[in-house]
């Protein structure tokens, strides 16, 4: 059957290209405008961007080409249509572990190269003898700054993020955190130097290590006098990997089987030493900043517990309101198993002179952070298409009503990788009702669980081992074994 092609209007595509390229610049770095776009318009641009990206990246990112070929998808006509092309986050750790253990960075490079549009084949990694040296080499010679993270299973995942991705990510943080929603940007919000206080590392390939230098670029506008970090060294990805493997092995009760290269073993003591003093050093650092930067506008990115400890002590000493009122505080939710005190927000707000401490939801594999609003919802930036997937079928749940499912995202701003990602997080979105805060953007409920935590039946007993069962077995059976 012959169909007549509708007249081609490229307006949406052109808009999509601007969003994909640098959405913050396109919207004049204006937080309120960004979060006030009509949803229909946003979704039209998202759909156009998906097709543009798919066409472009398919020839550049080999793993995507394979996936799209297998699914037989060349173009999508709806947002849901892209769901089969969202890549599970596991893809970024899908290399054989022995390559890492045997330090075969050439092969790892080949594998990583299939996940990014940037060419890694020219990077000579033959002299690399550690994760750190491998990732540094890539960073030195390409546009990439690979994000490494270690999971509880003892494997390390590598996300071939570009430096531009990191900058865009950090800009999103500045735009969303420094401005108050509903108002125009204030002088200094966009262009001014803001002291960046990062009670973490100077450098590193994990987010925790990488944030420092990019926050220096974006918040401190590159001025080293405005960049304050606690640890004057690089967070080693090798040591993080070792730690993850040791933890995973310990959970299974067999540390002896962890095959640790001698070079790494030699650094273990150093790392343990660093770990041991870390909380005290961080507290001392925050206290030093309080003295040094009183009354100034600061951006603090830290864990809530650390800020709480510093604030509590400060208040006891009769101090309060130490930083300028337009300072920005971003706190992490605290480590698992570390309860947050009831008066956390009150104490921090009183001491640091801030209206509120802001949380955000994000991950290494995405550029765009979702910031928590005054009504406790994480707002997804318009250039990110959120999906909720059915836990059983993996199919997208209807984009209407209130739904809870496995979160997946398509971030059209991804500069290096494909941008479509299936996470391990269980998220709730009310698709129909815009948030009371006034933002039009889609909003995720504050409570986000790991999918793995909520799965597993009531009282189903099986004799076949699962890792959870094993870890619990160890914990409980060694507990009373004497």
């Amino acid at each position, binding site marked *: 059957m012959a169909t007549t092609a509708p007249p081609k209007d490229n307006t949406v595509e052109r808009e999509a290209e601007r969003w994909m390229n640098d959405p913050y610049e396109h919207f004049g770095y204006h937080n309120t405008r960004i979060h006030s776009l009509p949803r229909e318009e946003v979704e039209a641009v998202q759909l156009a961007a998906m097709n543009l990206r798919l066409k472009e990246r398919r020839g550049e990112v080999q793993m995507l080409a394979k996936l799209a070929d297998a699914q037989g998808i060349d173009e999508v006509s709806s947002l849901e249509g892209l769901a089969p092309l969202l890549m*599970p986050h596991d893809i970024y750790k899908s*290399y054989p572990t022995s390559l890492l253990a045997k330090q075969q960075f050439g092969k790892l490079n080949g594998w990583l190269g299939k996940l990014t549009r940037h060419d890694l084949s020219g990077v000579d990694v033959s002299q690399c003898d550690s994760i750190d040296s491998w990732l540094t080499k890539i960073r030195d010679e390409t546009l990439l700054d690979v994000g490494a993270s270690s999971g509880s299973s003892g494997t390390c995942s590598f996300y071939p993020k570009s430096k531009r991705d990191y900058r865009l990510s950090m800009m999103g943080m500045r735009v969303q955190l420094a401005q108050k929603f509903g108002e125009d940007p204030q002088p200094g919000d966009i262009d001014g130097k803001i002291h960046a206080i990062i009670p973490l590392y100077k450098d590193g390939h994990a987010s925790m290590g990488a944030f420092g230098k990019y926050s220096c670029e974006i918040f401190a506008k590159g001025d080293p006098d405005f960049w304050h970090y606690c640890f004057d060294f690089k967070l080693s990805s090798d040591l993080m990997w070792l730690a993850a493997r040791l933890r995973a092995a310990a959970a299974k009760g067999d540390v002896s089987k962890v095959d640790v290269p001698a070079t790494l073993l030699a650094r273990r003591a150093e790392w343990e030493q660093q770990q041991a003093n870390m909380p005290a050093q961080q507290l001392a650092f925050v206290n030093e900043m309080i003295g040094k930067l009183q009354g100034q506008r600061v951006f603090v990115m830290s864990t809530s517990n650390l800020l709480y400890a510093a604030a509590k002590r400060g208040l006891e000493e009769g101090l309060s309101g130490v930083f300028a009122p337009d300072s920005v505080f971003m706190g992490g939710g605290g480590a698992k198993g570390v309860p947050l005190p009831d008066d956390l927000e009150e104490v921090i707000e009183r001491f640091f002179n801030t209206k509120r401490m802001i949380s955000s939801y994000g991950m290494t594999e995405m550029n765009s952070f979702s910031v928590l609003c005054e009504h406790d919802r994480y707002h997804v930036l318009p250039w990110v298409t959120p999906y909720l997937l059915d836990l059983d079928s993996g199919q997208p749940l209807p984009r209407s009503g209130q739904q809870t499912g496995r979160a997946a995202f398509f971030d059209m701003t991804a500069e290096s990788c494909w941008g479509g990602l299936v996470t391990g997080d269980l998220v709730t979105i009310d698709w129909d009702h815009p948030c009371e805060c006034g933002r039009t953007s889609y909003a995720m409920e504050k409570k986000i669980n790991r999918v793995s935590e909520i799965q597993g039946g009531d009282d189903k*007993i099986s*004799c*076949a*081992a699962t*890792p959870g069962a*094993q870890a619990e077995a160890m914990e*409980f059976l060694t507990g*009373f074994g004497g």
Partner: protein
Amino acid sequence: MMAKRPISYAVLRGEVVETDLIEFGGRGGDITFLAPDPHKIADRIPLASPRLMEDMYSIPFDGILDYLAELGPRLELSRNPYMQEALEYSYDTAPSTKPIVDAFYHDLPFMFDKERIRKMVDFNIGIDHLEGWVEQQLNGCTVGIRAYGSRQLHIVAGNGPVLGALTVIRGAVTRGDMIVKVPSNDPFTTGAIARTMVDMAPDHPITKHLAVAYWRGGDEALESRIYQPHNIEKICAWGGFASVKHVTKYIQPGIELISLDPKRSASIIGKEALESPETMAEVGARIAADFAPGNQVACSSSRLVYVMCGTEDEDIEKLKQLGQATYDAMMSLPEVISTKPKRYDPDLKRQVDTLRLNDDFYTVIGGKDGEGAILISHTSDRVEFWEYLGDRTINIIPVDTLDEVLDVVDAYTQTVGVWPDNLWDTVRHKGALHGGQRFVELGYGFNGAGLVGPQDGIEPMRRIVKWIVSEKPSADKVPLWGDTAKDVKMLA
């Protein structure tokens, strides 16, 4: 009219309880079922006094076998409405599919065969140890040892309906008093067996020494009442630690835990498997026979298959052929043995699909239709999600040496299938040192002695009995009194 709702009956010492029903289950799309409120029957679950064990000793071993032999045929589906009902409901709760559950139910009466049980008991415990004191002269004494029935609580696994029947048999032949806590993935079968026992012989000691009930594992208020040394002596808990972890806090002197802890199984294969299309077909069939039966829900189901073929490109090409032969063999197994899984684990599917994109390092055969998949590693690495392999999914891994394989045989390893025979002695010996518990010829993991044998290294039958010692001095034993007392050496 409301559809009839499934009931997990409590059967307490000859009495069927179907009152005070409350709802259980229903999480994660599971069906809900009704069971008597366990708190209302908590006092009737344990045996009131060890004194009440005496009646079990009024029956000779052959009398126990007679009872079981009479029970077996009564459990035949065609003549037993309780079993029919339980089967109907079990389709929803069982992890395996209808043809497999049907086959379990069909075969269940044969477990009660007299000679089969007699051999099982004699092999595992020794009938003479159950029937009386087995005496020997030792150090100037007549030392006797005897296996007594214990008051035992069984937290049964629900992989297959046979486990409840097996538990009933084991308890009866050891003259134990059994409390069976049924699992939510098999809440009906054991109750149906017990109801049949009540109909058959309501006052028989074996019937009176069985209490079957469902409660939610971890119901602390209930468990702390029952799990007391004055009620029970042994807790035999199958692998699921969701239940076991709650149990462990009740362990104290006077209560012994027999933990059939979670395990997994593997296969170790020599390079001969890749010699010809014929050997590949044979070995593929053997591998399939060791992982696919019952849809891989058992701990004895193989999940990791190591082939000592080397890791060069040509080796991998052959390994893919072996993988294809294995896949074909799996697909041609009769449906009473193996079927397309009931519900392919969506997380596993996601992982398998991810692996598909990574064809430099892995080859995936099958798996697109949720039927199961063969994952072939191109390096000596197992897949990252190897601990989650199930639903007829195995990982075939090439290795250069046996040592690489032995590194992954550990305390969580139950069965190891071995082929060809020239590997047998070495793998069995070295594997045992690493933690392997049961060694079988590849292809016979589900076609051997079965649970009639010692099961695995845990030997539950020997451990659910109490081993009691009696000592009497011989005539010439020097006493610890009188003039010669100082000459007695008090050796430990």
